[in-house]
């Protein structure tokens, strides 16, 4: 998902406090910033929310790539609004992470020096306009699968930012599907473009959920803490079951020859993505990994004087105000 392969931290707190904390979570209490929490819960959440925030911010890049080349003024306005939403989502999440005692600058620095990751999906290029459709439809669709249950997560600020994000995310998916409908019903060349976008984004979208975590101790701990609500396989299955009929509606073919409805389980059987590719991308070897971090580094460096100048200007204004009083 936007947060993949999150390792939960072992926790060495007072067993009595731990039990009381777990009882609060089991009772459906929300944990708030000033409440006592296990060190492992705090660390794991910083990692998870931070990675989620970074994904929103880095996720602006593949779409930003198409703003100046959108086919109509209306499409351009819509894409701008969507990319602006992603910036907003990043900000809500950074603020949620900051309530855990990490600063915004630290989070940014950890992304830039590779200590923190962003979702594997954003290391793939967006080659044609149809990719804007596929990203909205598939990538945002997959994100929604994960984010809707996270509205009930145990950490209050995280849950509240998810509520805001989910409200806005539905527009993202629908605008993507709208682009796909237009392309799929267009000229032969447009239809080929739509099919090509689906071909390239299908498996990377399935990878977003992360590899099977049936045996993962980290997932088990995170689920007990209610900072992970469903298993990766469960969400991936749900995504496939929802998306295949939509692809059929578009008249497009999911690039999986093994795809078949399984009456018994009431869901589709489908091929797993290539997990070695996933691990490689996560390590920073995706087709656009270097470019993405370079773009973030450049924005951070080029923006430094603006951040400083604004502070200096505010201090000057404040001094003038004090002098006038």
């Amino acid at each position: 998902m936007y947060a993949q392969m999150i390792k939960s931290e072992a926790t060495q707190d007072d067993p009595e406090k731990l039990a009381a904390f777990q009882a609060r979570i089991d009772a459906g209490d929300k944990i708030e910033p000033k409440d006592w929490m296990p060190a492992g819960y705090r660390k794991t959440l910083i990692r998870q929310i931070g990675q989620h925030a970074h994904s929103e911010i880095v996720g602006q890049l593949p779409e930003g790539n198409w703003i100046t080349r959108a086919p109509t003024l209306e499409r351009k306005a819509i894409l701008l609004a969507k990319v602006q939403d992603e910036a907003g989502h990043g900000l809500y999440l950074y603020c949620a992470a900051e309530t855990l005692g990490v600063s915004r600058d630290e989070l940014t620095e950890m992304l830039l020096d590779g200590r923190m990751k962003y979702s594997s999906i954003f290391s793939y290029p967006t080659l044609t306009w149809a990719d804007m459709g596929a990203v909205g439809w598939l990538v945002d669709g997959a994100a929604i699968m994960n984010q809707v249950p996270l509205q009930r997560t145990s950490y209050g600020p995280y849950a509240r930012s998810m509520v805001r994000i989910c409200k806005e995310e539905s527009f993202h998916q629908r605008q993507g599907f709208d682009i796909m409908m237009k392309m799929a019903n267009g000229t032969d060349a447009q239809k080929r473009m739509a099919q090509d976008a689906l071909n390239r984004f299908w498996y990377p979208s399935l990878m977003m959920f992360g590899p099977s975590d049936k045996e993962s101790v980290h997932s088990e701990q995170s689920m007990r803490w209610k900072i992970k609500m469903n298993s990766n396989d469960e969400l991936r299955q749900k995504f496939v079951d929802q998306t295949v009929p939509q692809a059929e509606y578009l008249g497009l073919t999911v690039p999986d020859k093994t795809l078949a409805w399984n009456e018994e389980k009431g869901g589709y059987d489908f091929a797993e993505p290539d997990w070695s590719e996933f691990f490689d991308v996560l390590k920073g070897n995706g087709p656009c990994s270097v470019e993405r971090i370079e773009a973030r580094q450049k924005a951070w460096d080029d923006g430094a004087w603006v951040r400083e100048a604004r502070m200096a200007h505010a201090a000057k204004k404040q001094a003038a105000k004090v002098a006038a009083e």
Partner: protein
Amino acid sequence: MKQEWPLWEVFIRGQHGLSHRHVGSLHATDAEHAIQNARDVYTRRKEGVSIWVVPAAQITASSPDDKEALYDPADDKVYRHPTFYDIPDDVGAM
């Protein structure tokens, strides 16, 4: 000089005459800047008609450890709620 912009808490009043409600936080250099940022971050879809911003450092919050001392005294005062009183149906709406 390296200094992070201060944190502000943002409150928005919606269209229907309800109170300002806390919606989240953001970083800004001063109050005016915080209002500008709040407009971009929290009211892109007509969520409100009025914005308050408050420096996060200026907020005093009750401590979670005081929960019992602060709120338990209300537990045994059910007579403060209208449902505590049985009014016969014959009396009509009250």
